[in-house]
C-alpha cells in the first residue's frame, strides 16, 4: 500500500548539505500498522513527510496504493493527497473553526456540496465519540478530544492510508491508551493501512504489527513486533528495548562486569523467551541437566499484543564448560541468550 524505494532527502547543497534520509526502502502492506521508531533527529519526521510529499525526496520513488506520487505535482498531487490522511503531534486544528467545520475542511477542499458534507461528518464524529461537541471550538477541548477531532478529520475523505506523526507524544499515558485503541479499531473496522512514527516503545508495543528502526536517516532494522521485542538484532534495538523494559542488571553488578571471562568468573546473561518456552520450567531443568545453578537478578513477563514474552537477567554459576553447555541448552530451547559480561567470584 505504501512503498518507498531508495528514498533520500538532503537539505541544502555543497559542503553544508544535511542528509536527513539515506536510501530508505520501506513497504507497508494493506491493512498493516507499521511503526517507525527512532530518537529525535533520526529522520522520522522527514520520512513520514516524504510519504505524502510534504517533503519532496531528493531521490527515490514513493508510491501509495499503486500510484507513484513522486511523479505528480499540482492538482494531481492534491487529488492523491485526498486519499492519504494525516494526524499530528500538535493536532493542528483550525482554532477559528468549530469541531464540525474542522472535520468538514478536507471535504470543502474537495468541493463536496454542503448536504453531503453533513452526512459524512456526523457519523465520523459519532465514531470518535464527539457527537456532543459538534459546535465547540478546539480551545474548549482536551488534548485527547482534539486528537479525536483530528482523526475524524483525517478520515473524512475516506483515505486508504493514515499517517501518524507522533500522534500521542503530547498526550498523557491514559489518553495515549485511548487514542491508540481508537486507531486500532479504525485499522480493524476500515482495513486502513497505518504508518506511524514515534519515539515511544509503548506505542509500538500496543498497536504495531511491524516495526522499523531509524537511525541517522537510515532504516537499520525491520521486524515483526513480536520478534523485535524478543530479539532485536541491532545494538540500537536492544537499547530501545532495555530502556523500555527497564531490564538492566543491578548497578553494583554492572560495575563488576567484565567483557571477557576470567579464571573464576560466571557469565551474566539476558534471556528472552516467548511462546511455549514461557511455560516450560527451564531454570530448574538447567540445574538438573547441566549442573549449573541459576541466580535470577531480574525477571519480568510482558504481554506484547497476543504474545507473552518472558525476560530475565541471571547469573549462571558453575565451571566454565558447564555454563557454556547451559547457554547452548537454552538456545536449543529457542531462548534468545545475550551474554552481558562476566563477574569474577572470589573463589
Amino acid at each position, binding site marked *: 500500500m505504501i512503498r518507498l524505494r531508495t528514498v533520500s532527502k538532503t537539505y541544502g547543497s555543497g559542503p553544508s548539505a544535511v542528509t536527513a534520509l539515506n536510501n530508505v526502502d520501506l513497504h507497508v502492506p494493506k491493512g498493516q500498522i507499521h511503526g517507525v521508531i527512532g530518537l529525535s533527529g533520526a529522520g522520522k519526521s522527514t520520512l513520514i513527510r516524504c510519504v505524502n510529499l510534504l517533503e519532496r525526496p531528493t531521490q527515490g520513488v514513493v508510491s501509495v496504493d499503486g500510484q507513484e506520487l513522486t511523479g505528480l505535482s499540482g492538482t494531481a498531487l492534491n487529488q492523491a493527497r485526498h486519499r492519504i490522511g494525516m494526524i*499530528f503531534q500538535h493536532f493542528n486544528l483550525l482554532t477559528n473553526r468549530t469541531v464540525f467545520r474542522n472535520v468538514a475542511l478536507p471535504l470543502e*477542499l474537495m468541493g463536496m456540496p454542503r448536504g453531503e458534507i453533513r452526512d459524512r461528518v456526523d457519523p465520523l464524529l459519532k465514531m470518535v465519540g464527539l457527537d456532543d461537541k459538534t459546535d465547540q471550538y478546539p480551545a474548549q477541548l482536551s488534548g485527547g478530544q482534539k486528537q479525536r477531532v483530528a482523526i475524524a478529520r483525517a478520515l473524512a475523505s475516506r483515505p486508504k492510508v493514515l499517517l501518524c506523526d507522533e500522534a500521542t507524544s503530547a498526550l498523557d499515558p491514559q489518553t495515549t491508551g485511548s487514542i491508540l485503541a481508537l486507531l486500532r479499531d479504525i485499522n480493524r473496522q476500515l482495513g486502513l493501512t497505518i504508518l506511524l512514527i514515534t519515539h515511544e516503545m509503548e506505542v509500538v508495543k500496543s498497536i504495531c504489527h511491524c516495526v522499523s528502526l531509524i537511525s541517522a536517516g537510515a532504516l537499520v532494522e525491520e521486524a515483526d513486533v513480536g520478534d523485535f521485542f524478543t530479539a532485536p538484532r541491532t545494538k540500537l534495538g536492544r537499547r530501545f528495548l532495555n530502556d523500555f523494559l527497564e531490564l538492566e542488571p543491578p548497578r553494583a553488578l554492572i560495575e563488576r562486569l567484565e567483557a571477557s571471562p576470567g579464571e573464576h568468573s560466571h557469565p551474566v546473561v539476558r534471556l528472552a523467551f516467548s511462546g511455549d518456552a514461557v511455560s516450560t520450567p527451564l531454570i530448574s531443568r538447567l540445574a538438573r541437566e547441566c549442573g549449573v545453578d541459576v541466580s535470577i537478578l531480574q525477571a519480568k513477563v510482558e504481554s506484547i499484543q497476543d504474545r507473552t514474552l518472558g525476560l530475565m537477567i541471571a547469573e549462571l554459576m558453575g565451571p566454565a564448560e558447564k555454563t557454556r553447555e547451559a547457554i547452548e541448552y537454552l538456545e536449543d530451547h529457542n531462548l534468545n541468550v545475550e551474554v552481558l559480561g562476566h563477574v569474577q567470584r572470589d573463589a
Partner: protein
Amino acid sequence: MSNAMLELILEATLDTLYMVALSGVISALVGIPLGVLLYVTRPRQVMAHPLLNRSLGIITNIGRSIPFIILMVAIIPFTRMLVGTSIGTNAAAVPLTIAAIPFVARLVEGALNEIPPGLVEAAQSMGATPWQVITKVLLPEARGGIFTALTVTAVTLVSYSAMAGAVGGGGLGDLGIRYGYNRFNPTVMLITVVVLIVMVQGFQSLGDYLVRKSDHK
C-alpha cells in the same frame, strides 16, 4: 463659545472621520492582500517566490521609511493628478492611504506569521491548493490579528490626518492649528484634543470588540 465655532468643530470632526475612513478602507483593501503576498512568497511558504518577496519587501520598506510629512508634499503632483487638487480632505486622503498601505501590509504579515506552521502543513496534507490555504486557513486564522492591525492603523491614521490638516487637508488638526495655535484660542485647542482622544478610544474599543468576537483561540 459661539454656535459658529461648534459648527466648525463638528465639521472638522466629520472631515477627520472621512479622511480616516476613506484612507483606512482603501489601505485595508490593498494592504491586506499585499501583506498576504509578503507572507506566502517567503521561502518555504505556499507560494514561495524569493525574488518577488524581496522586491515587495524593499518597496514596502521604502514606503514605511519616508516621514509622513515629507511624503505628503512630495506626492503633491500625483495627488493633483488623482483628485484634481492638493487641498481638502480628498487630497489629504491620498498620502494617508499611501502611507497606510505598507503599514497595514507589514502588520498583516506579522499577524499571519503568528499562525503555527503546522496548520498550513495539515491543510496541504489534505490536498489544499495555495489559494485554499490562503482563504481557508491563513485569513480565517489570522482574523483576530488582522482586526488588531486595522485598529492600530485607524488610530495611526487619526494622528496622521491631523498632520495632513496642517497643509490644507482640513479636519481637527487643521482646526487646532488655525484656531487653537495661530489665534491663541486654548478652548478650541482643548476641544480638538478631547475629540481626538474620544475618537481614538472609540476606534480602539470597536477594534477590541471585533477581535474578541472573531477569535476563538
